[in-house]
């Protein structure tokens, strides 16, 4: 009896402790006090040949990340030779006056390095990451690639072949198919259209075209070189100058690109992807603004609308109505215009209902003021998630290069927290009304046999092949 009492006492003692602990387990804890954080200082110098050099400190990092960005991209390729900018940039890393393709690979791997080359609508990136003790070797190698590329015919075929396989592979990806078709509409007649090249134009490109493109556009005054890691501006400028001083500038201005304009009518397109179980929808339009002050309300607006799993689009389409598996939106900022995109993955039977809900959510942005709590939540997310986004060193240097090219260092880089914190719902609504009054065009990719109902309900659906060729139009289920 005495023993039982003691055991009961012990049990009560422990269970009381557990019960008192249970209280704090019941609800999520408050966060710790938030620390003020600013983006690391981006220091910039311009060398005598016009090359801009920037540095972002990341003390104690064993890596250096280098971004050499040229403010020239596929939009600078001649109209009948789209793909030339990509082919040229890739070919540059396949041999120089003194180094073969194999030598370059050896050199990169011997310094623990990785070199990626990427060409966009209006930019070319040579993204080089290497161990910090190898700065001289890395700059020496990169300067040879940039200043003395051999642009050999034998390597041209190999690069063309590998690009061809990439294009073919991309056609198997429904998201890519849909996005490229939408961009074909949005960029029709604009130089950006050339970035949507296919294998046909690649076949026409000769070594002479590559050489001419290289001679014309690879100039220091078009370039920005950013170094991120344990380095300061004085050392970076000295070293970069040592290896790149023979790169001669001609003080010419960066090629101008016409302004993008929104489509005034809604297009509805379809690409058949037999055996696809899911449907992918991409919709969007150009946003007609160039005022930098509109960027910050637009980012908050996008956060509220569709940037994360807690945004309205995802919560409505997936969580509340179970119409979609995924639904997100994004904003791309180009020097010649801003692009708004919505991407949705959903089952075939949900297309009509999902499109209706997306339109309703878009319309809400222009008609209803966003509640203050939702605005504050979006602002907190943007402020707090930035360090997470920029934790990989390449992400930080890439962002810095883009901001520098857009001349937004003072406004965006240095004043990011203030620009977000001071925003109010009325300003966000003003921007929504200004930019979101345009119709969003829609591309659907899926198995045609599974979405006949949608075709029967739709007035006019233009059907395309994977290369963007218009095949026929469906009206109320009938082919025209």
């Amino acid at each position, binding site marked *: 009896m005495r023993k039982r009492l003691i055991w009961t006492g012990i049990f009560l003692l422990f269970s009381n*402790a557990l019960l008192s602990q249970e209280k704090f387990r019941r609800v999520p*804890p408050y966060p710790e006090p938030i620390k003020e954080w600013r983006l690391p200082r981006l220091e910039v110098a311009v060398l005598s040949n016009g090359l801009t050099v920037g540095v972002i400190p990341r003390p104690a990092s064993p890596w250096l990340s280098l971004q050499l960005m040229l403010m020239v991209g596929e939009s600078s390729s001649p109209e009948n030779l789209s793909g030339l900018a990509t082919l040229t940039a890739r070919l540059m890393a396949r041999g120089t006056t003194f180094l073969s393709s*194999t030598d370059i*690979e050896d050199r*990169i791997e011997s310094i623990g390095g990785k070199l990626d080359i990427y060409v966009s609508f209006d930019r070319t990136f040579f993204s080089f990451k290497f*161990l910090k003790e190898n700065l001289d070797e890395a700059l020496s190698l990169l300067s040879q690639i940039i200043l003395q590329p051999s642009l050999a015919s034998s390597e041209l075929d190999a690069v063309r072949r590998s690009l061809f396989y990439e294009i073919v592979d991309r056609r198997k990806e429904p998201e890519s198919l849909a996005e490229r078709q939408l961009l074909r509409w949005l960029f029709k007649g604009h130089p950006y259209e050339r970035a949507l090249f296919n294998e046909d134009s690649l076949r026409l490109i000769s070594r002479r075209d590559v050489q001419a493109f290289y001679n014309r556009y690879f100039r220091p005054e078009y370039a920005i070189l950013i170094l991120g890691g344990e380095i300061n501006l004085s050392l970076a400028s000295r070293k970069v100058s040592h290896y790149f001083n023979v790169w001669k500038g001609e003080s010419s201005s960066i090629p101008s690109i016409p302004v993008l304009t929104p489509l005034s009518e809604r297009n509805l397109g379809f690409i058949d992807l037999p055996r696809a179980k899911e449907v992918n929808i991409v919709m969007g339009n150009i946003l007609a603004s160039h005022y930098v002050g509109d960027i910050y309300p637009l980012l908050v607006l996008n956060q509220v609308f569709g940037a994360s*799993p807690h945004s309205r689009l995802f919560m409505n389409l997936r969580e509340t109505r179970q119409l979609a598996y995924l639904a997100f939106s994004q904003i791309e900022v180009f020097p010649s215009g801003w692009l708004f995109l919505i991407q949705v993955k959903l089952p075939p039977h949900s297309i009509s209902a999902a499109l209706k809900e997306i339109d309703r959510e878009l319309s809400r942005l222009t008609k209803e003021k966003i509640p203050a709590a939702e605005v504050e939540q979006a602002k907190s997310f943007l402020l707090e998630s930035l360090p*997470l986004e920029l934790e990989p*060193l390449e992400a930080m240097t890439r962002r810095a290069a883009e901001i520098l090219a857009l001349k937004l260092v003072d406004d965006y880089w240095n004043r990011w927290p203030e620009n977000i914190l001071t925003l109010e719902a009325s300003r966000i609504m003003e921007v929504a009304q200004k930019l979101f009054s345009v119709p969003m065009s829609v591309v659907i990719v899926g198995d045609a046999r599974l979405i006949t109902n949608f075709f029967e309900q739709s007035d006019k659906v233009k059907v395309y092949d994977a290369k963007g060729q218009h095949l026929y139009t469906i009206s109320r289920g009938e082919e025209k």
Partner: protein
Amino acid sequence: MSLFLFLAISSSLLLSQTEEKSVSEPFPFVYYHLKNGLGVILAEDSSLPVVSVAVAYGVGSRQDKPGQAGLAFLLENLMFQGSINVGPMQHFSYISRVGGRPNARLSDDMTIFFQTVPSHQLPLVLWLESDRMLGLTISEEHVDRARASALDELIQRRFSEPFFDSFLLFDQLLYPDFARSHPLHGYEEDVMSLTAEDVRDFFRNYYVPNNAVLCLVGDFNRKRARELIEKYFESIPKGRELPPEPEVAMTFKGPVYKIYVDPLASAPAFHLAYRVAGANSPDFPAFKIMEYILIRGKTSWLQRRLLRRERLVVRMEGGLETRGNSGFLRLFAVVNNEVMIDRSLKAIDGEISRLKSSLVTPEELELARNKYRADLRQRLETTADRAVFLSEMYFRSPSLEEIARMLERPLKVTPSEIVGLANRFLTEENLAVLRVRIR
């Protein structure tokens, strides 16, 4: 035993939280154990206001029993389906709401859950992780949902991913025992038959503090972090002590040559492997360097010859793989036609003969060392990378103080060691080849 003696022993055990030990290489961290046996590793880095939290459990697909293949995978999935105070998918929701990214990774010997969040949200992550360690919601309904999602993924991959089944078959050729050869996501029939009680047993046995490690890397105050860890984790009851897993004998016997017809493949391919030493063997560091000489990176002998110089293969991948005490140098390559398989095998044989008959040059060895060094630093780049790395080391290295020494060992390998081991291991008896034909 008298009750008082029992209480005295119990209380001394309860108070046995270990002293903090400091390690400075490969980067500074401290570690200790809570009273319930939970390992804790703390590595401070205030360069950005972020913190990564990893919780690793010493259980993987190797603990699946025959007839229950896929149980570890199912439980990994269920860890996001709710716990005592957290609803289904709320873990994901809480973390992504503050800008973080929850992740999980299952291997044959470990299951790791990790996320990176803004540093002031550390209490939230500790609350979430402790809640699911304390008690997971494992109802029939939850298991049905997780099973359906696991089966869906399995079926989707089997019927849409070319070469998927060929990888499973090759695993079975290399590892004749069930524990190491069955796929992480199990077999359809096994997954179908798993019950909530099976899952509960598995959770009770393996998802316990004394079989887990909690690792924090990033911007936090160590004293405050210790307080929070104690608050959320110390009262979680210790699980029963697990008996040490018996080592499974290596039974592979080559040469093995097989053919498999893949109905989904649009091009032929082949798998090739040589049995080598396991991770605990003193020979393992030499195989690590051999991996870089032969397979890893564009400058490796096989990539350069097969992919670039002779263009025998369209793509290739591979490296050194270890499961328990077994190790294999593995390679998978896709080719344009079957003639290329023969030519590739001949070319591989040529490169292996070169490795066996002459010493690698100092330049080749230095290149391999540099690639190894760079990969190692790449594995430690972000706070999440380091949290996962330390969690893995907690279970896989003999002691955390040994990590730096262990990582340095491949850098001391000599050309004569490589030649010796190549002759001993890269032989016909250790070779397996699976040819994949198109239908």
